[in-house]
């Protein structure tokens, strides 16, 4: 049975100027041990979808879905009390800004032990031992002294390690890393990514990596799902996604990478991601797509089969030859 199963998840925000659909028909199935990356530009709804599963969205959000189960429990009709038993324990999340996600008023040791006390009910000595063990696991030097440090006394890389230690404290089955390295320097980013993948191997948890960095995706993930304007436009294993993207958006995104450039001019995607008021009628990517036809502009595209990376497009590209005939 799948660890996490989400079907047709939509999130609407009530704003002063009407409702805004941030996530539109999001599907995801995760097996234990999967490393999945979710990529997309800002505003593509990648973070919101996972915050909805964690139940961390404000009251202005309306969450609807056909299926949303995690490890056998239905996340839709769950009470806040039941939810708190799951999140932070079996399902935990690392946020982008370690400096703002940690509480500046408490030592990092207190914050990490809080999770151990509440979820696992360990006694004081066991908590101390486990916290030291966790700090060692994430590569924080001198763990005993660092436990009594405050977040402002440590660097961004160290704080992100604390966040990771906190997230894996209760041996979660699913770890969601929301842009875990965006705020960090490249040499530190390499250390953190290495740490996440080695932890994943050790514990066998499922790892979701939310990012906008194609380099990080290529080096870490097994499976990639591409989000655009709240919709999933394509999902494939990492190597075929980079070699034969099926959705024009994925192809354009890859072509815009400076390292793939052959000339001084980069191929660009004209225009911007649609906002609340200029959402196109048909395919959401059609105003920016080089291959769009009248059909694309009027009719929302169907979702192609898994052999075409479930591309949400009328005219998927890189279609295998035998399919053409």
């Amino acid at each position, binding site marked *: 049975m799948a660890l996490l199963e989400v079907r047709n998840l939509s999130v609407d925000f009530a704003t002063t100027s009407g409702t805004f659909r941030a996530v539109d028909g999001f599907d995801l199935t995760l097996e234990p041990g999967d490393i999945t990356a979710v990529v997309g530009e800002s505003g593509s709804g990648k973070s919101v979808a996972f915050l909805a599963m964690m139940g961390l969205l404000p009251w202005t959000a309306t969450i609807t879905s056909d299926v949303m189960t995690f490890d056998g429990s239905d996340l839709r009709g769950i009470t806040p009390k039941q939810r708190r038993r799951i999140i932070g324990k079996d399902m935990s999340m690392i946020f982008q800004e370690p400096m703002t996600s940690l509480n500046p008023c408490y030592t990092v040791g207190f914050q990490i032990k809080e999770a151990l006390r509440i979820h696992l009910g360990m006694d004081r000595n066991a908590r101390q031992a486990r916290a030291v063990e966790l700090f060692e696991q994430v590569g924080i030097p001198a763990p005993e002294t660092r436990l009594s440090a405050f977040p402002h006394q440590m660097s961004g890389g160290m704080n992100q390690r604390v966040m990771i230690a906190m997230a894996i404290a209760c041996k979660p089955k699913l770890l969601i890393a929301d842009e875990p390295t965006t705020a960090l320097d490249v040499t530190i980013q390499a250390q953190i990514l290495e740490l996440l993948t080695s932890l994943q191997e050790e514990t066998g948890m499922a790892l979701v990596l939310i990012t906008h960095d194609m380099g990080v995706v290529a080096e870490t993930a097994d499976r990639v799902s591409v989000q655009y304007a709240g919709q999933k436009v394509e999902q494939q294993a990492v190597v075929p996604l980079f070699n034969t993207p099926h959705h024009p958006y994925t192809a354009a995104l890859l072509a815009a*990478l400076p390292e793939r450039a052959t000339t001084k001019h980069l191929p660009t995607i004209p225009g911007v991601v649609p906002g609340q008021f200029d959402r196109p009628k048909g395919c959401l990517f059609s105003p920016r797509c080089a291959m769009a036809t009248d059909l694309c502009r009027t009719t929302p595209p169907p979702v192609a089969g898994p052999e075409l990376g479930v591309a949400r497009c009328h005219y998927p590209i890189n279609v295998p030859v035998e399919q053409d005939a």
Partner: protein
Amino acid sequence: MTEPVLVAENLTQEYVLKGGLFGQDRVVRALTGASFTLEAGKTLAVVGESGCGKSTLARCITMIEEPVSGSFSLDGTLAAPGTHDALRTTVQIVFQDPYGSLNPRQRCGQILEEPLLINRPDLSPDERTRRAREMLDLVGLRPEHYDRYPHMFSGGQRQRIAVGRALMLEPKVLVLDEPVSALDLSIQSQILNLLVDLQERLGLAYLFISHDLSVVKHVADDVIVMYLGRPVEVGSKEEIFAHQRHPYTKALLSATPMADPTLRKERIKLTGELPSPVDIPPGCPFSPRCWKAQDKCRQERPELDATAHAAACHFPE
């Protein structure tokens, strides 16, 4: 060979941290001994991690701050307090965050005209408007954008306004402090193309500050790699990306994720954190994290060797 438009020699900047009532004042050496030349129509990229002095360098070159020692000349004129006002129009800056660098209460047209209002007081209002409208066209915005406020624009459009504002005084040198790091990938390529076009048309020299090596590899002609306020390797882009001489450059390149899943490689893992610029290690500043460090590295500070592709290392490759 063309005359360089920007020559910097041994630029050094320090900040004093007050120790408080009982503590001692401490000195942050943000930038030490930066020397380089920049020619018209060329791009010099400055790369390094946070705290390596990239932005301090930008602030010195744009005369936002006075360096504590060292000198630089722009277009043949030595920058000194007396010449700052005259030189400010030669060098302009584009900041990283287009959401923070534009005044939300000014219309796009006012933003573009303000440099002229201050530095070219003899221009008539009509002339200013005409030039601002020309600039809108040059940076790829539409005429009707003239009367809009910054919040009505997307991030990429705002960065176009910021570039346009920097170009209003027809500078020769443009300092670009992380111009695309706050932008999405699809927008990033639009801005990079704009910068390439403008450079070709106007013969601008760019001082391009970035931490993203794939962007640097795309735009730069020459590269300076900085570590803790010091240049550790200087050379042409081809040299730096093909064979790195300094171990830090090597580590930096190997840590940069490549967008090619078939190329999963062994990374050089740097241990430890960037030391604080308040107490830079004696000897080579990189020695505590370097896998090749020997006793000599920990005691003697290596200087940049005097070759075209220079590296500040006792044991360069």
